[in-house]
């Protein structure tokens, strides 16, 4: 099991010591997290990492998972997509079933807590049945809710407004709600398989197995093959670069099984890359964290030419590897990349090609951007910062009428 002290050499002793001081100030508290799955998906990954660390800080933290039938999860998938702006049709029967499954789950929960953190819309209605069992109810929205589908949001808003506070991942996702809204940006775990340091021979072994030669500069994009990640645009950019400079392109990721456009996009990508020995399309299983880590460490330049993005943790991970990163100027990518400091932002395949060429011929600048990018992630986007934010938030919620507390 990972120990909090393992983060000291990475984040700095002052950061870990500060977590202990904050936890001491907070005192022993009971925290219940509720979501809809124990494995798979970003939220489960976040909780698996954060809960043992919060326990080491002296908090009594538990993790509850709601159960449901396939129809329930079909509905909640629709809610998720509707929050992201898709025009998902909903019927009264669907809303009623969603409420009913939550009511059934509420009967099983006997805990009492100081704080309940409910993740995403699936378990949100539990508050209507369990309100007295906790002092503070906090809704944690991990979804890009910047433009939710209004009819669905109207329904959800009536539930969410009952909470004492909500947390969003980016300012632009905040909503008009009658309670305080807080911002906690996502983070990466530097000790996870995706991000842990790898020896050069381990990196080489992965590239050998994936049959990627390192005879030319490597350009990498890690993402699902869906239209918002614009893999076709990346191939266009790569072909523009190669008119001037030899290099290889790796597009690595999984299939977008829940995206109706996914198979068409993948076919288009394969068509665009066919017959070109310098383009590697790597369809990797969802648990290929170590392979992705190795590819990122082997790459000379990492790109994320998204046309729509939530926070863009693949960018954070690339920056953490100390690589120069070029990203589309969308979503959370713009919070992470600053032109000429921590990478480059682009708006088109031509822009991407231009910046790739620029960096390929300025290796010193590329190294400098990569170094600053890693430091930026170290300061702002490691899991230790997220723990600090949660501890701070809990102290603040103990004093809900004040926005400034001095001890």
């Amino acid at each position: 099991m990972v120990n909090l002290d393992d983060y000291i050499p990475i984040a700095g002793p002052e950061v870990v010591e500060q977590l202990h001081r904050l936890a001491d100030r907070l005192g022993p508290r009971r925290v219940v997290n509720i979501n809809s799955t124990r494995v798979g998906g970003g939220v489960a990954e976040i909780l698996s990492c954060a809960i043992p660390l919060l326990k080491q800080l002296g908090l009594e933290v538990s993790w509850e998972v709601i159960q449901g039938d396939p129809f329930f999860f079909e509905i909640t998938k629709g809610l998720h997509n509707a929050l992201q702006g898709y025009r998902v049709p909903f019927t009264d029967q669907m809303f009623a079933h969603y409420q009913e499954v939550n009511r059934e789950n509420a009967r099983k929960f006997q805990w009492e807590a100081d704080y309940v953190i409910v993740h995403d819309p699936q378990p949100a209605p539990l508050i209507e049945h369990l309100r007295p069992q906790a002092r503070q109810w906090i809704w944690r929205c991990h979804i890009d809710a910047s433009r939710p589908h209004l009819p669905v949001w109207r329904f959800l808003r009536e539930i969410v407004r009952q909470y004492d506070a909500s947390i969003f991942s980016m300012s632009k996702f905040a909503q008009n709600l009658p309670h305080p809204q807080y911002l906690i940006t996502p983070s990466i775990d530097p000790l996870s398989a995706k991000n842990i340091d790898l020896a050069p021979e381990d990196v080489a072994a992965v590239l050998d197995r994936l049959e990627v030669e390192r005879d030319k500069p490597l350009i990498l994009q890690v993402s699902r093959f869906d239209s918002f990640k614009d893999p076709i645009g990346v191939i266009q950019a790569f072909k523009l670069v190669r008119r001037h400079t030899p290099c290889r392109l790796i597009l690595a990721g999984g299939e977008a099984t829940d995206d109706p456009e996914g198979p068409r996009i993948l076919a288009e990508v394969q068509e665009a890359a066919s017959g070109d020995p310098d383009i590697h399309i790597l369809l990797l299983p969802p648990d290929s964290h170590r392979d992705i880590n190795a590819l990122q460490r082997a790459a000379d330049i990492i790109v994320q030419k998204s046309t729509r993005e939530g926070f863009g943790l693949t960018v954070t991970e690339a920056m953490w590897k100390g690589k120069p990163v070029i990203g589309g100027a969308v979503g959370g990518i713009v919070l992470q990349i600053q032109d000429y400091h921590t990478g480059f932002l682009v708006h088109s395949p031509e822009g991407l090609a231009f910046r790739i060429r620029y960096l390929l011929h300025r290796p010193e600048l590329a190294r400098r951007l990569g170094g600053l990018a890693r430091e930026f992630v170290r300061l702002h986007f490691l899991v230790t910062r997220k723990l600090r934010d949660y501890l701070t938030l809990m102290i603040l919620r103990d004093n809900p009428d004040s926005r400034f507390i001095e001890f």
Partner: protein
Amino acid sequence: MAPLCNLEQPAANPFWFSECFLIPMPMGRAALNLRELLHAVRELGNGVLFYHFFQSRLITNPPEIEYPNEFSAWAATALQDIKLSEKLSSFDPFEYQNLEAVRQAVTDLLEEYLWDLPTVPWARPGLEFHFCQASTIVMRSEISAATLRDFCTGLRQVGLDSIYYHFFESRWRLGTREVDDFSYWLETNFELPDLVAAIRNIDIYFYSLQETRKTLLSLIEGVAEGGGDG
């Protein structure tokens, strides 16, 4: 040769490092162009101005600082209006007595700038200005300094939030741009006028918090190693 400064000399009053924890609170409001920015600056609460001029220094704390506040950065990168960015970069909120005066001055600046423009500049897509305020906890840490040596040890131990609080935000608290908590303590506990002056000559706008920490340590330790003072 100037006398060496004694790192072990006791201070009359120990320095207690405070820690400062901020959580941003998004307002759910954005500016897509310069006119919308002007309206928001006029209308939003003082906490929002304080966040974007001061607290964002801790929240965004880039490893290198090019623009001294979020408005000038936005003008340059999102509006790509370098002239406006230059004006906003030179705007110094510490010159004003309170946030209402800061608001009036920024409003005047933006209004006058817009007045002369033939068209309203719009943000690049994806780079809209999102307004925030923050909730804050200030907590006395367990780290204190009774000597300069302790002070250097403390500077290394505390988080960057503490550097922000004592070296940046304190100027607003103390009501003078020139004086920060650190140099005030040095001035009132030791006879080191050159060191105090050197610390007050650091241009806070262009030092990241980690650069500030390093610079402070190098100035203090430099004096002890023979740079001398007085």
